[in-house]
């Protein structure tokens, strides 16, 4: 019974964790207000490789640390140039991008 409970808890934790292999984190200069950053969500979510089933249409903005997390479709490839152009068009300046590992660690993005 205990093992079943632990397995269920692990399953829930894994399914609710945003830190999956297809998630990326972008450090964006100046993104300090959710109302002002609506355009970033709007522009980035229109990119064809974004997975709309996660976050807010595939995009999560964390203004406290100026981070934008995106979910990429499992069968799609991230287009960094298009992503950075979308963030620029949303009104901000992307600085660098990291890939999120399955345990939530950030590692340098290797295209």
């Amino acid at each position, binding site marked *: 019974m205990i093992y079943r409970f632990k397995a269920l808890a692990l399953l829930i934790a894994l399914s609710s964790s945003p830190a999956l292999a297809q998630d990326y984190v972008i450090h*964006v*200069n*100046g*993104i*300090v*207000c*959710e*109302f*002002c950053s*609506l*355009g*970033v969500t*709007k*522009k980035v979510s229109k990119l064809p490789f974004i997975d709309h089933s996660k976050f*807010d249409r595939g995009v999560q903005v964390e*203004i*406290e640390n*100026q981070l934008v997390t995106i979910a990429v479709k499992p069968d799609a490839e991230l287009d960094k140039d298009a992503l950075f152009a979308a963030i620029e*068009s*949303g*009104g*901000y*300046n992307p600085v660098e991008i990291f890939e999120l590992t399955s345990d939530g660690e950030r590692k340098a993005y290797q295209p």
Partner: protein
Amino acid sequence: MTRLLFALMLFVSSGADAHQPEMDMAPRWGGGYGFQTRVEHFDDVTTTWVEGVYTWDKSVRATFKLPYRDGELGDLILGLPLKKYVNDGPKTANWSITPSVQLPTGDRGEWDTGVSFSYSSETPSFYQLYDLYTWGDRTGLDINAGFAFPGKGSGTFALWDVSLLTSDQGDRVQTGPVFVYFKKNMMFRAEYKHLVYERDSDWEGGFFNIGIGFVY
């Protein structure tokens, strides 16, 4: 006659000195647009404004402001905010110059022009705006500063406003609190400014402004 002068002054100055953050903060994305309506009351005159903004690029916007009072539409004000943004880590700031023109679309319509120079900056917890403007014989300075309280998909600003105006109709200083709440693409703003100083005028009473806007 005096009331008419006051009304005209409100018509032309309110577009410049009654800020709504929607026009400054958002939309800052290319192709973004927004609408808002607000009601203001000062010196026994109540005016309803319908306003809109379109953003080509974060550095170029177009705005319109149309007042409605006593069953009549007033003069349409068109503005062209030109902005220079600086995004620097946990801070964003912009310098702005906004030439504006008033078209004689109202019953007592007249042409007029104005320009404002402004600076605003924002961090996750602090916001400030300084706007120096001139319309004909009127020159004013408007300052908004205060704290931001971000939530998840929503947020609140608690600001303090100081407005100074000098004109042929008199001089005044008003100050008071501003409350702003946003949720997703909606922003609500309410403010009250007390008339703390006036010279060579008959102005009296407080200034109330309440408005709601949406951006897309």
